[in-house]
């Protein structure tokens, strides 16, 4: 008790150097906790990107490549799946739903995804969460677009706005056409996944964009004003279709729904990939094998959860380097403490002699010194934790919007407490060095004051 009090007062007396030491430890603790928290949350955000999908099917490439292109919109799938193959697989036994997707176009750097309305019903992310609309609804017409949350907030689009979607990837597209203005009919709630950065249009509309593109390309080569005619024709076609709806409307609602879906989906020659869910997960492996051995076309089916894990494992080296760095920072801060304690020790030999003169045993001196280092590390850890929370609170929104990592501000996890315990333990062990030194000083010096 008296030793704890002495240690505390002695530290208070040297608060300048103690504070600096404490500061470095606190910073390192904050850094370690933040890096670990962000790493783990990045990992979970990452694996939360898609869920509830049993298989993703695309043209044969690598597993990870297919995942990257279909889910993360990274890279470009050169080949697609023919519409026939899609329809064949879709009608297999056990298939509950499929979502065809067509990628490859962009709008101001954001991916444009052509898909069916089923997307908004069956696409799941995180813990089997559905997509939610903050405004509007799913597309109903061929020229409707549903925006991911970030697209809407970043580009300032509202419901009813007109958007031009160009063919091809990249920020600056050469083929800016006013031919195909899309109307914003829905804005999705934020998901923290690539969905936020995606514009969703009906699958059928993709062909329209491409058609206008090819017209444009051909007109660039050809002086003929053919495309005007085509335009008219296209419009006419559309009107026809709409007319048809109206007629059917009166007959059968279900029919009308299907009809409309069919109109939205159109008859594309091929799609980039499709997601599928089964009535029972038991179908997954069997279906996967069948698809991978599908004769008419070279296809690849992946289980997203498995491939996500593989992908993350490829990134573990980065993880480990981060962990290593923060561990080194902690170590350096603890060595800083060692340096200050040792440097102070020489000046404190008189103090030790005085304590010995009033009857302190050498191990009292040892304990006193250990308490000091323990106290510094403890306080450093506490301050570090406080800073960690402050940092997380202030940067959570930034990380969400800029890195798509949703940070959970929760109490310290078992893992984080273990980390802190390890730091405390190392601090204690490192503190034993000056303590041992002081012990031997007090043995050899006794009460003779050597300064």
């Amino acid at each position: 008790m008296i030793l704890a009090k002495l240690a505390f007062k002695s530290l208070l007396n040297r608060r300048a150097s103690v504070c600096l030491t404490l500061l470095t430890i606190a910073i390192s603790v904050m850094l370690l906790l933040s890096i670990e928290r962000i790493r783990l949350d990045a990992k979970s955000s990452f694996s939360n990107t898609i869920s509830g999908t049993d298989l993703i099917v695309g043209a044969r490439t690598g597993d990870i490549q297919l995942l990257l292109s279909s889910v993360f919109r990274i890279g470009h799938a050169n080949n697609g799946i023919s519409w026939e193959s899609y329809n064949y697989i879709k009608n297999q036994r056990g298939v509950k739903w499929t979502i065809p997707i067509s990628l490859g176009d962009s709008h101001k750097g954001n991916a444009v995804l052509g898909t069916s309305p089923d997307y908004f019903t069956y696409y799941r992310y995180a813990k089997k969460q559905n997509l939610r609309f903050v405004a509007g609804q799913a597309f109903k017409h061929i020229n409707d677009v549903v925006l991911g949350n970030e697209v809407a907030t970043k580009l300032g689009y509202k419901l009813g706005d007109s958007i031009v979607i160009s063919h091809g990837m990249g920020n600056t597209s050469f083929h800016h056409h006013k031919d195909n203005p899309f109307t914003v009919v829905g804005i999705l709630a934020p998901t923290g996944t690539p969905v936020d950065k995606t514009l969703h249009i009906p699958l059928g509309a993709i062909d329209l964009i491409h058609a206008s593109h090819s017209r444009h390309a051909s007109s660039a080569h050809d002086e003929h004003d053919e495309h005007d005619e085509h335009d008219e024709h296209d419009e006419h076609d559309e009107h026809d279709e709409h007319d048809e709806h109206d007629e059917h409307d009166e007959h059968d609602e279900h029919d009308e729904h299907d009809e409309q879906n069919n109109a939205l989906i159109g008859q594309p020659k091929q799609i980039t990939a499709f997601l599928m869910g089964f009535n029972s997960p038991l179908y997954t492996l069997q279906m996967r094998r069948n698809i991978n051995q599908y004769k008419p076309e070279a296809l690849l089916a992946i289980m997203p959860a498995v491939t996500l894990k593989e992908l993350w494992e490829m990134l573990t080296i980065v993880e480990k380097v981060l962990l290593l760095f923060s561990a080194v920072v902690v170590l350096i801060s603890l060595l800083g403490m060692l340096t200050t304690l040792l440097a102070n020790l020489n000046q404190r030999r008189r103090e030790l002699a005085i304590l010995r003169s009033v009857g302190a045993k050498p191990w009292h001196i040892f304990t006193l010194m250990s308490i000091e280092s323990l106290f510094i590390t403890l306080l450093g850890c506490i301050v570090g934790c406080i800073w960690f929370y402050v940092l997380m609170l202030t940067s959570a929104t930034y990380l969400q919007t800029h890195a798509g990592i949703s940070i959970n501000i929760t109490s310290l996890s078992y893992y984080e407490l273990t980390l802190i315990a390890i730091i405390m333990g190392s601090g204690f062990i490192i503190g034993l060095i000056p303590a041992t030194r002081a012990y031997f000083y007090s043995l050899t010096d006794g009460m003779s004051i050597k300064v």
Partner: protein
Amino acid sequence: MITLSNISFKWHKKALSNTLNIPYLSINKGEHVFLHGPSGCGKSTLLSLLAGINSPTSGELTILGKSLQMLTKAKRDAFRADNIGYIFQNFNLLPYLTPIENVVLGCQFSTSRKRNALKHASSLEQQAAHLLNALGLDTNLHYSNAADLSIGQQQRVAAARAFIGSPAIIIADEPTSALDTDNRQHFINLLFEQAKNSNSTLVFVSHDNSLQPLFNRSINLVTLQDKL
């Protein structure tokens, strides 16, 4: 009370000659002993033996009926805590404690001294304040910063720390060498007064022979050893 017979001590086992060689010395209870001798003759070394920090290489050292060299190191530390008040030449105080806390520190490692201190006062702090007053340290300085006190004031605090809990023996190693002549006299008188009050034996080391007449016994360490 304190008896040394055929004491020899060397700092290192391989040292050629002994630092100390004392055939016989006995100090009685309540005596005020003035121990003097030239620098380097081993005065401080002798005190370290009396305080139980070091153990004699050979011979027998008995204090308060206990044979010190028979005790373990830890026991000797406890013995010192219980029975010996020690005053250094200067810088006696822990700078991060107030004068009161410095005085109380004197009995923190000994239950018997705590008990003694509480015989006279209701709390250790109160007894510390009482001693500081008796040694002439103003009450308004009791809770000041120990490092801000003058050297004379610091030595008073050190004396109070040595006396708290009335240890049987007070050892002072040149406690007045940093004081001016007037202060020296005054300080020694205060020491005597307290020593009488607590019935303590006082072993006082100094170079300054002018202080010698104040003590009822004077020992020259060189002649003590010459008798060999």
